[in-house]
């Protein structure tokens, strides 16, 4: 079975895409945030791999062609951002202040929770960059001496959690302005959250893309300082 899968250049892509389509159908039918297409796709793919005893590496031998497009697609986030250039210029101060406060909130909350759970220094720095996009977070974690593979896992889980819970969080915090919703999503859940913000609207999506970049850069600077605190 594993050899059969390994010989295919499309198997991983096909089950990933079908998992996502099933997720979209379920969401259409049940209309609840829990039926998040991305989350369902991931769980379905894991279930298929486990049930058919397929190794992750064999799945990824073809699924990696999906991952390949992540870098060019992230570059393309500049396009919806540019389309909102007027809104960006008009609200530059509000946007930068909100993202600075957001990045600090992330660092401070990890510091407090890590000390409550008595995590080691190495575990603490592993979690410090948890809100930023995975490639930046992985770099920060390595730089500070954390476990970078755990960092990536935690970043992805934060992204999925934000993607799924974003609607509810905005309702509870009574965040209704499109710019504010987008910035919140991007600051907390990077690119995985941004795909949800894109569904909310063009302005939300653009602000979320902007937040990925700005929060990422602020965290590069902030994390090296915060690393000394625990």
């Amino acid at each position: 079975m594993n050899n059969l899968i390994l010989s295919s250049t499309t198997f991983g892509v096909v089950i990933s895409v079908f998992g996502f389509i099933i997720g979209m159908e379920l969401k259409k039918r049940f209309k609840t945030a829990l039926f998040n297409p991305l989350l369902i796709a991931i769980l379905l793919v894991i279930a298929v791999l486990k049930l058919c005893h397929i190794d992750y590496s064999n799945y990824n031998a073809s699924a990696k062609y999906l991952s390949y497009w992540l870098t060019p697609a992230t570059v393309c986030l500049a396009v919806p951002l540019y389309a909102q250039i007027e809104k960006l210029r008009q609200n530059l101060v509000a946007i930068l202040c909100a993202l600075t406060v957001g990045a600090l909130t992330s660092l401070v909350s990890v510091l407090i929770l890590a000390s409550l759970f008595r995590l080691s220094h190495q575990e603490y720095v592993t979690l410090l960059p948890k809100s930023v996009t995975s490639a930046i977070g992985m770099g920060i974690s390595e730089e500070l001496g954390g476990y970078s593979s755990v960092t990536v896992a935690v970043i992805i889980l934060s992204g999925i959690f934000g993607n799924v819970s974003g609607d509810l969080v905005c309702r509870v915090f009574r965040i209704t302005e499109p710019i504010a919703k987008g910035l919140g999503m991007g600051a907390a859940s990077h690119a995985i959250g941004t795909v949800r913000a894109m569904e909310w609207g063009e302005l939300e999506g653009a602000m979320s893309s902007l937040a990925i970049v700005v929060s990422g850069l602020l965290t590069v600077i902030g994390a090296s300082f915060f690393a000394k605190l625990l």
Partner: protein
Amino acid sequence: MKYIRQMAIILSVTCVAEILKYFIPLPIPASIYGLVLMFLLLLTGLVKLPQVKETAEFLVEIMTIMFIPATVGLMENWDVLQPILLPLIVIIPVTTILVMGVTGRTAQWFLRKKEKQK
């Protein structure tokens, strides 16, 4: 031809970003250099919106499914997550909700203050 030209521009910017990443040793991924570079190119008019629009929108639209393979990879990393599983079950939701809420509320406060001033 339109799509070939658009793809050529997008992949060229990505390639230049990867070269930048190689020469600038910061923990910043090529994709972020590329995003900033593409934004600057559009801002200065060196690349016009119609020269990248449809292909860029297509890639952004299908971006969600690009996250599936890496996330499925978590099944491999399960043993590294296990020792700190309990703290993580608390830390991931709490910090994610806090960051989203605080960032959103701060932005909203600034936006509404500005509106009142008008």
